[in-house]
Every structure is written in C-alpha cells, then in structure tokens.
C-alpha cells in the first residue's frame, strides 16, 4: 500500500513535465495510474471481509511514529472512491481546463491531493493519519486558490485552510491523548487491546478534540461556511474534494473511531445534533441558492450532516445506511458536479435562472445528470433510494427529532434535484442555452460511468451489500454484521415516508421562487452569518496583534531592557520563592586576597559606568567590569570560560564603538529624571539580588559527582580529548552546540538585515522605522 500511495505522489511530481511534453494526451495518461490503482483495490474486495491487510514501515520508533497502513472494508470503500472518481476527475480536468496556462500545475496539485487522501484513509498510525490529514488541507488550499488572481478565490482558500487546520490541530492534541489513553498510536492496536476508553478519565477531552477536527473538515454547523465558499475552485476540484472525498475525511474519522469512542451518550448527542442541524441547514440553503455549484455544495452539507447523524445514532441499521449512502452520495454528487461543470463550459453560466431548455443541445450530459439527480432525490431504482430507505429505517428506531431532520433534509434533496436537472434542461430555451454545446468525451465520461454505476448498484443492491457494505459496516461496528439489501422492501413505514418526502420535495420545487424567498427571509431574520463572523474574528485577531505589538515593540531600547530585566528578576525570584530554594551554602571557602581584589575591580567598573557622563566613558568603564569577570574565571580554574569572556568583552567593546559612530553625537548624556533613576535602581538591585540568591542556592545544592566522573573518564578514552569542556561542547553535547551555532548564525543574519533596512532608509532620507 505504501507503493500505491507513493506511486500517486511520484505521478504528481512528474505531472507538470508530462503535461509539457504531451499536452494533448496528458489527461489520459495521468488518469491511467489512478485507474490501475483503483483496479488493484478492487481485486482486494473479495478477501477483505475475512482479514484486513496491514503494512508498516518504521519511521521514528522513539516517538511511536510509524508509516503504517490498514486496509479493511471502510478504508477499501474510501480508497475505491478516491482512486476511481479521482481517475475520472483527472480526465475531466483535461477537458475542463483545456488550454489553461497552469494546467500542469493543476495536475500536480490534484494528484498530490489524491495521494494525501489515499494515505489518510489507509493510515493506521495516528500520526501518519494526522500528516496525511494536514496534507489534504494544504493541497485543498492550493486547489481552491488555483485561480489565484481572483481575490475571492484567495480568501476562500485561506478560509478553508484556517478553519480546517484549526480543527486539525485540536485533533492532533486529541490523537496524543487517545494514544496515551489507548496504550499505543496504532489504531488497530487500540481497537484490538479492547481498552475501555469510554470510561477513561480522558474520554471527554479526546472526544471533543477529535470532533473539532472531524466537524471542521466535514463542514458541520457551525463550521459549514467554508464549504460553499470553496466553490470558487475550478469545478473538477469541487467535484472531487468538496463533495466526493476530502470533506468526507471528517466522516471517515468518525466512522473509524466509532468502535473505539462511539456509543456513549456524549457521542450520540454531539453527532446527532451536529449532523441533524447540518443536514437541515444544508438542505434549506440549497434551495435558497441559484448557482448550480452552490446548490450542489449545500446538498453536500446535507449529505455530510446525514452521515454524521447516522454515525451518531449507531446500530446496525444506521451503519448500513451510512455505508450505502456514503457510496451513493459520492457517485451522484461526483456526476452532478462534473455535469454542472459541463453545463457551465457549454453555456458560460451556472445561474439556474439563466438556464433552461438545454435538453436538445446537451443530451448526453442531460441523461447522466438525470440519472444522478434521480439518485439524489432518492427515487427507485437508483442507489440513492436504497440509501434513503435505510436512513429512514434507522431513523424509525432512533430519536424522533433525528427522523424529522432526515425527512426535511431529504425533501430538500428532492427539490434540489429538480433545481439542478429539471430547471436547466427542460422548459423553453434561454438565450444562454441557445449556443450550448456538448463537450468532448473527457467531459462526459466521468458523469456517465458514475451515474450508471449508481443505477447498477440500485438494481443489484445485494452485490453492493455483500461486497462493500458488509465489510464497511463490520469495520464501523467493530464486529461482523449481516447485511442483506434489497431494492424492494415491501410496504414499510420507511416507504411511506419516502412517498411523503417526494411529495413535499416536489411541492417545494414547483414553488421554488416562493420557497427561496421564504428561506432567504428566515435567514435574514435570524441574523446568523458565520461567514461574516469569521471575518470579524480575523479582524479582531489583527487588532489584538497590532495592539500587543504596539505595546511590546515601542522602539525604545530603554523599555526593552527594563522589560527584560524586570522579567528576569520577577520570574526567577518567584520561582526561587515558590520552590523554597533560597538557601545559603553551609560552608564558605576563605576569602582570598586575589578574590577581593577582583571583586573590587568589578565594583569599580560598575560604579564608574554609573557615574560616566559620556557614552564612550561608559563603555570603557563597563569593560573594566567584564575584564574583572574574565580574570575571575581564569583565576578560579575555568580557563576556557575565561578566554571566551575576554574575547566576548573585546568584541563587545569593538561593536559598541562601531555602533556609537552611528549614533548622533551628544556630548554628555542627558541625566534621567529622579523617578527614572529610582526605578532603574530598583530593577537593578532586584536583578542583582535575585541572581546572587540563585548562585548561592546553586552552591548550596550538592552537585551529583557521577556526571563529572563520567565525563572525566570518557573524555579521553571515548572521545580522544583531554579538554573535558571542549569535548562536551563538540562531542558529548555536540547536538546542543549545533543548535547554538545555528542560533548564532540566524541572530547575525537578523542583525545584518535589520541594519540594512535601517541604513537603506537613512540613505534615502526616510525615517529609519
């Protein structure tokens, strides 16, 4: 499986070059490997019911990170959808974006997305899953913002990234907790260990954090706003990412974790409420929209809500509904989106008010969209009908409100199906439709296969049930489940509900304009606009950041220093005090004359610095202090530190003198005010006292001798050096030193760039800031 995932990524990397070489054929060639991969996955179908496949490559064993894959019914279903629909999408984008300047780049993005998504659904290790999850967010960002000259596309891309990666980070925290509570980071291990996470103290935090990830990714209310905006992406992207695959990642995660975390009241409430509200919101908003892609985007919300709702309710019936509806939705939504793109391509508009009477001109697209729309409306003999019956079946055994939500949402689907097929294709031809034309096979092949598959699956649901639904349900349930599907169930209450659904949906479609006005009015009256709220939150964060920066980066060196030193004194002092670490050493060595002399030197330097009236005098006085310190190190047996101190002191003086040349010449330093001087003195004394206390405390703590013994013993034998200090620096703790020199390099480059900016500003006579 690693090979398969890698293959897609390699293909992505090669795509731009391949497209440059063979621009006319590239989409066929690039669609082939995903199709082959899809075939490979299809070959796994017969055996998957018995034993899942597992592959693992050790990545960072110390951290529990492995690149491991797990193929069971659930991941297989997703993998087939991702690679199968993906192959058609690649083909379709060849026709749709024909001649676009960045077509090669588009293939790169979409194939990289395909690889990430495939990795996501196959991953067994929580960290691998997270990595692939974030990769889908990033590739989705690139794809939504593909038309990057369009400001709206850029905003939508950023919005999708911000919302989904915010959830992704929460999910990561949840994963870490899950691994800690479950005793491992392999999902299969956690499931197999049978650890009862539901009663664990960490259960609620884990659940909430994971739900944050799943709900943002799968656009559950109140995080739903990014999905319709993502429709700014080119149509193949909308068809692939934002209906058939990526947005289902959240749902996938919920299904995957259902055997581990599901079944508790918290799980049930969170998922049914979020799912139900999302389903109804999506359904109603779909009827308000007039843009074909937006209508489809909102119906995707409805589908995602329904899937979440089903997982929340749980039980064999709901899980069967989940498995079937998942496949049904991907098939019809992929077909409808590609069809909508073909309509846009042929007529130049996606506004349903400008479309009508397309049938004679676009019969192929029309026929396949009709099949897909029938499936969306949940009419027999399509697979959508089977899915809807199962949803109602589950709803009849579940809470009343869940059933009601499913009913309203499905009625909206019937009306929306009318809006996307009947409205554009029937009735009198509009001006936009008059010059409509059919696209090439690349444009209709995808919708054709997907919609016909929907029909086949509807006619022979038993096949779908035993091949996919059974293993999928088993993976979600965590135990084998008998799945027996039929198109015709007899006169059941679910069938009655279906009839009512169609009636209500048809009525809503016939009065589409009044329905739209009513829904729009309600939304206006409710004054809920998450999209605007998103803008306000971002603007608020900008304001806070600006205020904080303004406070902290005032530009006054004096204030910076005061802040730093006050913080040192306060934090160190507080820690000392809280830990009760204020202690005096039990015995002091005798005061040596040379020690006294050095102390006197340093004191002299410090006092002279304070009294100095010019900058140069202050610098020289300060270096007396530093030299005294260097001598102290030398005298008391730390020659390395002593020499370093000496050199640093010298260089500091050189640099300070150089800096002085740049400062305006002021003869004498202005005397600070009395209050300032007292304030400075207080901070200085506080720092001095605190640091002295720390040093005394350190002396009072007996040092473990084994460390110095170890270094002493191994320095020459193991590391071939007699200077223990240096051996520690370059060998024992070499990694630390590597970090430190990197910091030195970065700091020097930072100084350099800052100076360049300031000096360049000065040369041009501008304000240096």
């Amino acid at each position: 499986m690693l090979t398969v995932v890698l293959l897609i990524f390699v293909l992505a990397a090669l795509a731009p070059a391949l497209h440059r070489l063979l621009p006319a054929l590239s989409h066929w060639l690039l669609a082939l490997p995903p199709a082959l991969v899809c075939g490979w996955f299809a070959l796994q179908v017969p055996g998957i019911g018995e034993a899942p496949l597992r592959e693992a490559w050790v990545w960072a064993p110390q951290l529990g990170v492995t690149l491991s894959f797990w193929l069971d019914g659930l991941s297989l279903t997703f993998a087939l959808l991702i690679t199968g629909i993906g192959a058609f999408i690649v083909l379709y984008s060849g026709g749709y974006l024909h001649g676009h300047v960045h077509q090669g780049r588009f293939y790169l993005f979409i194939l990289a997305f395909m690889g990430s998504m495939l990795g996501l659904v196959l991953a067994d290790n929580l960290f691998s899953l997270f990595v692939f999850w974030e990769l889908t967010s990033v590739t989705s960002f690139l794809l939504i913002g593909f038309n990057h000259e369009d400001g709206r596309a850029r905003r939508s891309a950023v919005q999708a990234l911000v919302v989904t990666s915010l959830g992704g980070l929460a999910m990561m925290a949840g994963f870490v907790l899950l691994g800690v509570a479950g005793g491992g980071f392999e999902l299969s291990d956690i499931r197999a260990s049978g650890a009862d996470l539901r009663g664990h103290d960490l259960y609620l935090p884990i659940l909430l954090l994971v739900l944050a990830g799943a709900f943002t990714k799968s656009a559950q209310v109140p995080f739903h706003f990014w999905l319709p905006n993502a429709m700014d992406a080119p149509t193949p992207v909308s068809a692939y990412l934002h209906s058939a695959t990526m947005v289902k990642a959240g749902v996938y995660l919920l299904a995957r974790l259902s055997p581990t975390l599901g079944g508790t009241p918290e799980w049930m409430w969170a998922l049914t409420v979020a799912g139900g509200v999302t389903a109804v919101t999506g359904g109603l908003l779909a009827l308000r929209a007039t843009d074909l892609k937006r209508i489809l985007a909102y119906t995707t919300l409805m589908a995602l809500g329904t899937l979440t709702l089903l997982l929340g309710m749980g039980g064999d019936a709901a899980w069967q509904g989940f498995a079937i509806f998942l496949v049904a939705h991907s098939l019809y939504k992929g077909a409808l989106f590609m069809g909508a793109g073909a309509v846009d391509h042929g007529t130049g508009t996606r506004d349903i008010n400008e479309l009508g009477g397309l049938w004679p001109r676009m019969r192929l697209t029309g026929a396949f969209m009709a099949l897909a729309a029938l499936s969306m409306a949940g009419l027999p003999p399509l697979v959508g009908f089977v899915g809807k019956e199962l949803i109602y079946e589950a709803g009849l055994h579940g809470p009343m409100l869940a059933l009601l939500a499913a009913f309203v949402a499905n009625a909206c689907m019937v009306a929306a199906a009318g809006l996307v097929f009947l409205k554009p294709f029937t009735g009198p031809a509009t001006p936009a439709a008059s010059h409509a034309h059919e696209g090439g096979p690349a444009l209709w092949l995808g919708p054709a296969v997907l919609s016909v598959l929907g029909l086949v699956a509807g006619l022979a649901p038993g096949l779908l049930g035993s091949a996919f639904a059974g293993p999928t349900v088993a993976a979600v349930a965590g135990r084998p489940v008998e799945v027996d599907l039929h198109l015709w169930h007899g006169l059941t209450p679910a069938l009655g509900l279906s009839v009512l659904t169609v009636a209500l949906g048809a009525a809503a479609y016939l009065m589409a304009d009044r329905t739209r006005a009513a829904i729009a009015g309600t939304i206006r009256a409710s004054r809920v606009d998450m999209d605007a709220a998103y803008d306000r939150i971002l603007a608020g964060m900008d304001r806070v950041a600006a205020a904080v920066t303004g406070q902290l980066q005032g530009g006054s060196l004096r204030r910076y220093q005061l802040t730093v030193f006050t913080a040192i004194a306060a934090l160190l002092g507080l820690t000392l005090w809280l830990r009760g670490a204020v202690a005096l050493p039990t015995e002091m060595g005798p005061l040596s004359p040379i020690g006294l002399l050095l102390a006197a030197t340093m004191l002299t330097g410090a006092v002279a610095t304070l009294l100095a009236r010019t900058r140069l005098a202050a610098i020289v006085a300060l270096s007396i202090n530093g030299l005294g310190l260097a001598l102290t190190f030398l005298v008391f047996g730390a020659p390395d530190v002593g020499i370093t101190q000496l050199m640093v002191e010298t260089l500091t003086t050189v640099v300070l003198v150089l800096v002085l040349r740049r400062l305006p010449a002021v003869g004498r330093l202005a005397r600070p005010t009395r209050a300032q001087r007292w304030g400075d003195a207080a901070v200085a004394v506080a720092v001095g006292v605190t640091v002295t206390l720390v040093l005394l405390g350190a002396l009072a703590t007996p040092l473990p001798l084994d460390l110095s013994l170890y270094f002493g013993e191994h320095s020459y034998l193991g590391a071939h050096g007699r200077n223990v200090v240096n051996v520690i620096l370059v060998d024992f703790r070499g990694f630390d030193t590597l970090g430190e020199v990197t910091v030195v390099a970065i700091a020097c480059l930072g100084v350099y760039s800052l100076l360049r900016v300031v000096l360049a500003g000065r040369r041009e006579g501008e304000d240096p800031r």
Partner: protein
Amino acid sequence: MKPSLILATGARLLMSLMLLFSLFILWRGHNEPGGGFIGGLIAATAFALHAAAFGAGALRSLLRVDPRGIIAFGLSLAILSGVPALLQGLPYMTGLWGTFGALKLGTPVLFDIGVYFVVVGGVLTMICALLEEG
C-alpha cells in the same frame, strides 16, 4: 578615512599574529583550553581590527567572500560532520576517529572547525554591516 600610521602598522602586524593564534587555539582545543568558539572569536577580533584600521571595503577585498558565505560554510561543515556516522549506521553526530601517522583526526574536529567559521562569519557580518555606509 585615512588610518593613523600607528594603527595601520599595528593592525597589519597584529592581525597575522592573531589569526595564527586563533588557528593554534582552535587546534589545541581538544586537549587544552581553546576550541572553535574561542578561536573564532579571536579571528573575528583580528579582522575587526583590520576593518577598524582600513575600513569595511578593505576587509571585504581581503576576505574575497561575503561574510554571510562564511557562516553558511561553517554551518554546513558542522552539519555535515555528523553525517559520516549516519553512513555507518550510528546515531547522527557520533564521533568517528582515525589516525593518520602521528595525527589523530575525527569528525568532532571538523565540527569544531565549522563552529569556528560560523563565529568568524557571524561577527564579521555584523561588523561589515555596521561599518559600511558610514
């Protein structure tokens, strides 16, 4: 700026001496006080003296390479010094030693030389930026 005769002569003499001394310090660091960091500081001071006497332009033409390039060289050397261990299947930066005649050399020495160059390059980057466009 015309350097004073004393400063110019002194700088010339001292710089060569200090550079030699810095190499000596770098070399003996493994067994006696010294090492890459201290050596680098001494070398940087030597160049700083030169720059103070003759200006940043003279320093640049003496160095021939941008000081930032010296940082990059040093850092790369330090990072690469850990790679041979990887190739032998040992953890990154495990010290490897070999004897060449009477000379004992090892990857930690390479690392120390890298540190030396980072320090020289870093300090000179700052000093050049400060001196230029006076």
